């Protein structure tokens, strides 16, 4: 008979996903892919919330994840609208070429 899955495994999985998302956000240049990497990091944090809530048999983790999802949806809508605006202005969404604020 096997043991139940220890919570540490979920935490480690969450950390791995967060690290992969962080690597992507640092190395990629396409702004939309950077945005997707940030969504992945949010998901890793959600996983940690759910795990901690489950470990304490509490629902607060799930409620927090619910609010994080709400904020992520708003962020997606506004962020993608900003990408469209930048694309109209500059003709590209390459993060290295968008330097209007550079002095």
């Amino acid at each position, binding site marked *: 008979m096997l043991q139940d899955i220890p919570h540490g495994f*979920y935490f480690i999985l969450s950390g791995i996903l967060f690290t992969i998302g962080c690597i992507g956000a640092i190395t990629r240049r396409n702004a939309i892919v950077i945005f997707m990497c940030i969504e992945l990091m949010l998901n890793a944090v959600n996983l940690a919330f759910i795990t901690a809530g489950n470990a304490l048999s509490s629902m607060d983790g799930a409620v927090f994840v619910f609010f994080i999802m709400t904020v992520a949806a*708003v962020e997606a809508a506004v962020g993608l609208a900003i990408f469209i605006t930048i694309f109209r202005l500059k003709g590209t969404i390459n993060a290295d070429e968008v330097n209007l604020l550079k002095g």
Partner: protein
Amino acid sequence: MTMDFSWFKWLMFIVAAALSIVGSLMMVTRRNAIHSALWMIATFIAIAVIYVMQNAQFIAIAQVMVYAGAIMMLILFVIMLVNLEKDSAPERKFSSRKFTGAIITIMLFFEVLVVGTAYQITGREAVYSAGMLQRAGNVRVMGSLLYGQYLFPFELASILLLIGIVGAVILAKGKKE
């Protein structure tokens, strides 16, 4: 007589974890943004499976509908609208930016590993155990929390969503000529 399903839980965990890691790695490395987005959807669904294993069925369904459905559809549309240029000149194989990024992320990863192996969960044990959730219903408990203890943040979230919708429309509409 109760069957022992823990081997199945392990199998599900290993498959879902492997799929989420592979999917996110492919998401980060694909050069075509559409391929990245499709791998991202696979990752989200694998994470939803892991939510189900942790007694968070409502969040799992919301994950599939909100993330894998709505947000990724939005991202796919914007990629198709915006991503006209083919891949720009190949990046230099080795740059100081990548080197710094690699160092930072490796440090981050080891910190997370240490926390994941040596953590200690503190805090009071609450009443929502797996059996209680099964008897009362996950969605019912979630709804009574959202409309009870968390009513004010819930209403604030609705205002935030409204502002987001209006802002997105105003931003994407552009100037009138």
